[in-house]
């Protein structure tokens, strides 16, 4: 039982590390703003599928790490990820039954919340992002959600994560 549990943790850990790697992956200049919020998508999946494992605490720790990796103000991503994961864990039973496109719409709304909090924090400290490109990840994250969902579901079934 313990080994199964620790294996689940390792799988979750590695998917998160993969999300961090994708976050840092250098893209050509034009594609930079389109970067989906990989870490958020992975966190959303796990908090929807396994809310007893990935909850607010994990979201906070992951958010802090993301802040350091993205050179954001310490706590900016932690705050927004905690809020987003809180919403998902509260609604997880309903969300699992939604069709994929409806989930994608919800991801759209959640990424919007995430970006809005980010914008508030940045504006407060005076590093407001320039241009409308700031909102592009909202669209791309929602577009990538069905694939992230499919991949992570297969991972979860293959490695019997629960």
């Amino acid at each position, binding site marked *: 039982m313990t080994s199964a549990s620790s294996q689940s943790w390792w799988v979750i850990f590695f998917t998160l590390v993969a999300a961090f*790697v994708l*976050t*840092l992956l250098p893209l050509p200049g034009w594609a930079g703003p389109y*970067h989906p919020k990989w870490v958020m998508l992975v966190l959303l999946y796990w908090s929807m599928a396994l809310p007893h494992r990935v909850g607010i605490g994990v979201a906070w720790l992951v958010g802090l790490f993301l802040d350091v990796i*993205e050179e954001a*103000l*310490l706590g900016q991503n932690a705050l927004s990820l905690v809020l987003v994961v809180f919403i998902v864990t509260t609604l997880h039973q309903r969300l699992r039954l939604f069709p994929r496109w409806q989930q994608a719409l919800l991801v759209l709304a959640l990424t919007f919340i995430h970006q809005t909090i980010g914008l508030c924090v940045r504006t407060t400290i005076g*590093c407001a992002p*320039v241009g409308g490109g700031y909102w592009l990840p909202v669209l791309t994250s929602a577009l990538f959600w069905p694939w992230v969902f499919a991949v992570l579901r297969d991972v979860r079934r293959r490695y019997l994560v629960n």
Partner: protein
Amino acid sequence: MDYRTQHLATLRASLLTMAYPVQFVVDLPVAVAGWVSEMLSSRQSLLEENASLKVQQVLLKAQLQRFVALEAENMRLRALLDSPFRIGERVLIAELLSVDLDPFSRKIVIDKGSTDGLFPGQPLLDADGVIGQVLHVAPITSTAVLITDPSHALPVQVARNGQRAIAVGSAAGNCLDLPYILNTADVREGDVLITSGMGGRFPPGYPVGRVTSVVRDPSQPFAQVRAETSSHPERSRQVLLLWPRNDQAASLDPVPTVVVAPPVPTSPTVSPPNSASSLPAPPAPVVTANQPAVHRP
């Protein structure tokens, strides 16, 4: 807390150290590609590169001879004037890790850290001029903010006449804005900008950029001046870290700090106008008067 004080610096440094494996993995393909192309490059191209480097070195050496003479003369004149200013700094070469941070700010990761003696606020150069300054230091890596970051401001002066200004990063390409130059000030297109050394963070006299456009609108108090950076952070993989000399740093310390700590925005209404117009800066006039002579070829 992270923004105003330094209490969380250790936490941040340890998290940054934990982030190094991730950054390393992301950087790996680029590093391997560079290594492979080095392995596979033909003897002919290596010979050509070697020849061109030799020519370049001879040219640079010739320039350096003149520079040494000028520096000695400059030091002698400064000694006559009793100026505390000294030239000469310790440098170290660091390599960039090719990782993409937030696309809406200009920040980079370099492969040197506090074990090499880096400190926050340390100036960063490339072959052509100032690139930025170190922001956070972890034991083996650090992050740096570029001068083109919108939250970064850099005290500069026009090399031609010593007119002082603040260069604020603009998110668009390699552009800098000089927002607090009076309409009547003598700034022209093509003017070379160098660091002024005000604020004590960047040593004076390093090239920053070149003025590309000056728009004077009589209804506005300030002219709209844009400049292009002389450094090319997107092209070079190597950067130069600089340790300003202690006596120089000490002599500049009493000057009010113009460069705000990088994460702090230069709130345009408060600091830059002061610095542009009313800085007393005791040693500054000497520096401004002599600086161009040293660094112009």
